[in-house]
């Protein structure tokens, strides 16, 4: 097992380096330098001043030198300083936003798991029943719904017309004056729509996947054996079949992390939530290279970690993986 984990960890290194190389190349090869953006509107800025700015940011060096400089700093967990006027360290900017995005994504992952798995099992066990047909319909419509559009509509209905839920930010204006439970309730009310919506797409996907797995497992010979032994149907389904059908779900959850992180840009801009997505969007628009690179790196690390955890837990329960 230790050997397996070590092997997986070593494999992550080239992938991680590949991600940084591609991100760096894409950013720096795009036309238009950040310093041009900052100085474009000011005719007073001379060419020398622009060159000086480039030198300050290290943008005057050849690309590969810039990359290795950046990588050297990264090894010491130094992501550089933001190009924006606050000039703060990138890791500081990201770290104050990471918890918000992680929190929302973890909540929606939990919601996806808790809702999608039972739906998938039930619709597989009662295949072609009314429930199965209804959930199949829900799944296809869910897949097809542009979530930001649904967000707009829900905001309009629950936020504006019915006035039940707040529609922007994470805290009310009077948040500081609330007691502990008041704060929890307030935060919860702000989180309902964002969490529900970011879980929405994954919900459809995972329940479909779970259904497929379950149907496949039920076909297997060992299920036939279990039935032939005269085990009650409940035991056959919920003990023998379910365990095997649940396995691949772990991997799918790991793979869904990049999508969730990517989706955070949309949700955070709709609901005005100060998270990673919002920071990323602003940084891209302002060509704040260090922040953009930092975010891409963090996003990749989260994805790699998710995949690693998924693979390890898979290996823990399925010895065949370890041997390979």
């Amino acid at each position: 097992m230790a050997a397996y984990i070590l092997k997986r960890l070593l494999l992550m290194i080239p992938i991680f380096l590949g991600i940084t190389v591609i991100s760096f190349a894409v950013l720096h090869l795009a036309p238009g330098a950040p310093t041009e953006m900052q100085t474009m509107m000011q005719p007073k800025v001379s060419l020398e001043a622009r060159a000086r700015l480039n030198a300050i940011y290290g943008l005057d060096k050849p690309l590969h030198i810039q990359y290795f400089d950046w990588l050297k700093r990264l090894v010491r967990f130094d992501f550089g300083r933001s190009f924006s006027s606050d000039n703060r360290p990138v890791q500081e900017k990201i770290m104050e936003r990471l918890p918000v995005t992680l929190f929302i994504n973890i909540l929606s992952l939990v919601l996806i798991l808790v809702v999608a798995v039972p739906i998938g099992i039930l619709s597989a066990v009662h295949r072609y029943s009314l429930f199965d047909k209804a959930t199949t319909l829900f799944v296809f419509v869910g897949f097809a719904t542009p979530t930001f559009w649904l967000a707009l509509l829900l905001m309009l209905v629950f936020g504006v017309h019915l006035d039940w839920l707040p529609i922007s930010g994470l805290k009310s204006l009077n948040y500081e004056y609330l007691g502990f439970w008041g704060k929890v309730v307030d935060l919860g009310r702000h989180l309902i729509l964002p969490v529900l919506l970011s879980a929405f797409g994954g919900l459809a996907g995972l329940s479909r996947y779970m259904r497929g797995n379950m149907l496949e497992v039920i076909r297997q010979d060992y299920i036939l054996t279990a039935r032939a032994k005269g085990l009650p149907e409940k035991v056959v389904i919920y003990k023998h079949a379910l365990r095997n059908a649940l396995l691949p779900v772990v991997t799918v959850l790991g793979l869904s992390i990049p999508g969730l992180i990517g989706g955070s840009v949309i949700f955070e801009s709709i609901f005005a939530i100060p998270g990673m997505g919002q920071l990323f969007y602003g940084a891209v628009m302002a060509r704040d290279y260090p922040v953009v690179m930092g975010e891409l790196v963090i996003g990749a690390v989260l994805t790699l970690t998710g995949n690693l955890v998924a693979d390890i837990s898979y290996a823990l329960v399925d010895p065949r993986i370890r041997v390979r």
Partner: protein
Amino acid sequence: MKRTLFRDFWRRFKRHRLGLIGAIIVFILFAVSLAAPVLSPYDPSYIDIKSILEPPSYEHPLGTDQLGRDVLSRIIWGGRISLMVGFVAVGIAMVIGVFLGAVAGYYGGYVDTIIMRFVDIMLCFPTFFLILAVVALLEPSIWNIMVVIGATGWMGMARLIRAEILSIKERDYVLAARALGSSHARIIWRHIVPNAMAPVLVAATLGVAAAILTESALSFLGIGVQPPTPSWGNILTAGKDSIEVAWWLSFYPGMAILITVLGYNLLGEGIRDAIDPWLREGRG
């Protein structure tokens, strides 16, 4: 021979009710897009300041926008753009994915290792972040958007075709072609790839839907297809600030996206089941 293969496919496909519904939706969308000049009641960019933000009525079945333009006409014309984005993006993804997947699967060895590592790297990107960054940096033109969506969406197809090829390349007819002295390129493109295309076609159908959704998400952030060219994404986005007074502006383009994506997904599902009965109820 081909004829019976297709008949066989059709016989299974038409029993798949959802797939059939999807095919009909997709067909109607094509027809409407092709006939846009005839069908759209108004010029989609005709500005009529006398009828601003009018609710749906007999003259304007889906209402008008902030500039008095007819929403129905804009959605019909926008459908052309959205479908084009979907098809071109998937076309690009298919070319890259099939080429890399075929080369990796056929040659194996270190070529395979390098390509598949590259696939792993691309799969670890939060793709939407990457698309967002590239489109914003390159300035959001429709071509940039199609190329970027295509260039970040080929990994699944590469994996599919590689897996197919690994199972096909040792079969007798491939060995026969090799014994007859066919070149590698000929064996790959004439003998192997056509037999490995089925799952790729399914992935492509689903990919069109995904590309349309991605474009609309980019539009939502203001960096999709740029106005005045109407795409469903940017019509929806243009309406979001007036949503409290004019819900129809954002509601209908969203519905158009939903129905289209639904159509392609159902069609893809139908094709998958019809191509390979063993994949029935397959993993989705």
